[in-house]
């Protein structure tokens, strides 16, 4: 295990150097908020944020991804043959991912990489990725990570964890992947005992700052049917405008749709993020829609995260407590209240 200390200037320089071995994704300030972007073309990493507006899930699972291509030109030998589009699975690193978002990658693996199915692109990209976490010194009021298996200094799913000590970052490797990355980082000193103590103190202080908690203890009881027909869904769903904000900002929402797009005789098969809030999500070819009402769609999202997932995988809830949906739901539907309602029903 390596424990190193970098002044902030050293760290920024070191990340530049890292680009010879990795495609580096860093938080970049874009207008009012941060998002993960490749560290190139002069993108300036900025570690002055609570969390990025979108989770870094798109680095592994892009919002739109060309899967296959084909030609409809019958004079071509391979007309109508679907061919895999070239993809880049070279080594990459997400530097500055918050612990909640790292836990989310671990959590969604069950969907993309399980004994029955392996999504080749998700798996290869994940394998090629090193996650350098960024501990939260000042969690948001809407964060409830400690209730759902994570925490502001949680190391779950991470290859290394960096901690902001004001004038410097202390970075600790957690896996061989993380250690390999740290070894490639030029500069930096071994972190002194005093610095590591400071990290410990910060971790304790930060955990105490988490002001939101959600109850989960009663979710697993076999009350699926009762919860499904609970009267509170009408109230919970009234304000919902069925946009994709919650699902697109959510680090654990993994649903996608596959579309063919043809231009002239060239076709692409594209995978796009989808959202269970959209009526189109469940529209059948027959025209029938089993979830054509808002209430059904809102209920589905919460039931999936807080009941079906819990029952099916016995691994807690499909929520990492990042609080993005709490902060950015345009109509203020608050998942913390839904936890209370479902757990208490």
């Amino acid at each position: 295990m390596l424990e190193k200390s970098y002044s902030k200037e050293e760290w920024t320089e070191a990340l530049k150097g890292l680009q010879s071995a990795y495609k580096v994704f860093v938080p970049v300030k874009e207008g009012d908020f941060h998002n993960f972007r490749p560290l190139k073309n002069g993108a300036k990493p900025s570690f002055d944020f609570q969390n990025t507006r979108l989770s870094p899930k798109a680095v592994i699972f892009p919002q739109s991804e060309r899967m296959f291509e084909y030609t409809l030109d019958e004079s071509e030998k391979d007309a109508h043959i679907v061919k895999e589009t070239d993809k880049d699975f070279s080594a990459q690193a997400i530097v500055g991912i918050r612990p909640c978002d790292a836990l989310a990658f671990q959590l969604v693996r069950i969907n993309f990489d399980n004994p029955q199915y392996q999504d080749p692109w998700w798996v290869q990209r994940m394998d090629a990725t090193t996650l350098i976490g960024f501990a939260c010194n000042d969690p948001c009021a809407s964060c409830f990570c400690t209730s759902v298996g994570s925490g502001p200094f949680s190391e779950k799913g991470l290859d290394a964890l960096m901690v902001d000590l004001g004038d410097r970052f202390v970075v600790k490797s957690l896996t061989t992947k993380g250690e390999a990355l740290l070894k490639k980082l030029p500069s930096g000193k071994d972190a002194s005992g005093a610095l590591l103590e400071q990290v410990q103190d910060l971790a304790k202080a930060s955990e105490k700052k988490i002001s939101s908690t959600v109850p989960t203890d009663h979710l697993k009881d076999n009350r699926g049917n009762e919860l499904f027909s609970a009267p509170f869904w009408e109230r919970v769903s009234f304000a919902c405008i069925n946009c994709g904000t919650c699902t697109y900002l959510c680090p654990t929402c993994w649903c996608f749709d596959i579309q063919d797009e043809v231009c002239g005789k060239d076709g692409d098969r594209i995978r796009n993020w989808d959202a269970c809030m959209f009526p189109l999500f469940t529209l059948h070819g027959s025209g029938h829609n089993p979830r054509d009402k808002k209430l059904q769609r809102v209920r589905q999202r919460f039931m999936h995260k807080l009941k079906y997932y819990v029952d099916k995988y016995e691994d807690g809830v499909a929520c990492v407590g990042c609080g993005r949906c709490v902060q950015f739901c345009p109509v203020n539907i608050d998942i913390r209240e839904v936890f209370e309602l479902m757990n208490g029903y």
Partner: protein
Amino acid sequence: MVEYIPKIREIARKLLEKGTVDVFIGYKKGTVAMMNEPVLIKDLSEVDILYWDSHCGLNLCNYLTRRTDRIGLVANGCNSRNIVTHIIENQIKREQLYIVGIPCTGIIDHRAVKRTVGNREILEVKEEGESFTVSGNGFQETFQKKDFLRTNCAVCLHRNPVEYDEMVADPVPEQEGVNPFKDVEGIEKKSADEKRQFFTQLISSCIRCYACRNACPLCYCPTCFVDESRPQWVGKSIDPVDTMTFHFLRAYHCAGRCTDCGACERVCPVGIPVRQFTKKLNKDAFELFGWEAGLRADQRPPLDVYRADDYNAFIK
């Protein structure tokens, strides 16, 4: 505008008690600072959760579409104009509604407030008259509301409801001498290339979540053109061409109907000023037809009516 709250509750109580309405639609105080949640109340016991302040920036008309019951609701200037538009477009009947008029002094731009306090997290906001105070861990700052109005509210010409059954307070003076289209004039001066660049940049962070469309009371089509699959008018990826197509087509569908209520901008999770699309069409409707949407229920909108005195020759 928090001083309206007791009156809103009093009216809602009266309406539900007397059975004048079946339900009452308003806001309840949000769980996050500067956010409030639209709420539908059926029971008298819930009346006291009704709330109103300068952060009620959605459009409650959005919740009326094709309802069949009798509804009481709060409406400020722009929301009331959308209700009128809904009535004209047969999405609701006037006699189903009991409109509780809010003389509006404008909604606060929560993003501008956050920008000003920087990285400090706002945990609470308190409103007093025309100023408001935000506070969080170890800080507290008081601002004048007029300095933080949403850009649509800053140039609003109809702050008082145009249609109502009862007002919660006396009308507020309307703003004078404001030019609602100053920003559009700037864009109009650009060359075609510059305009394309401007709009491309404007929507570069769009994630196609459709919050803007779904928050808009005008967007009530049973199936939106972006959701059609036969034919598929627009791609569903985040290809900039498709994203641009969505925004432009949506704006055109709002021509002569948009009241510049700002709900689309308010809800955008990535803060795109989407009104830059609709405002040009509002300006055209005003300049070509002298039309401002939703001011009158007895006149058809210019784009769905034949008039013998139309200035276009082709129509004669």
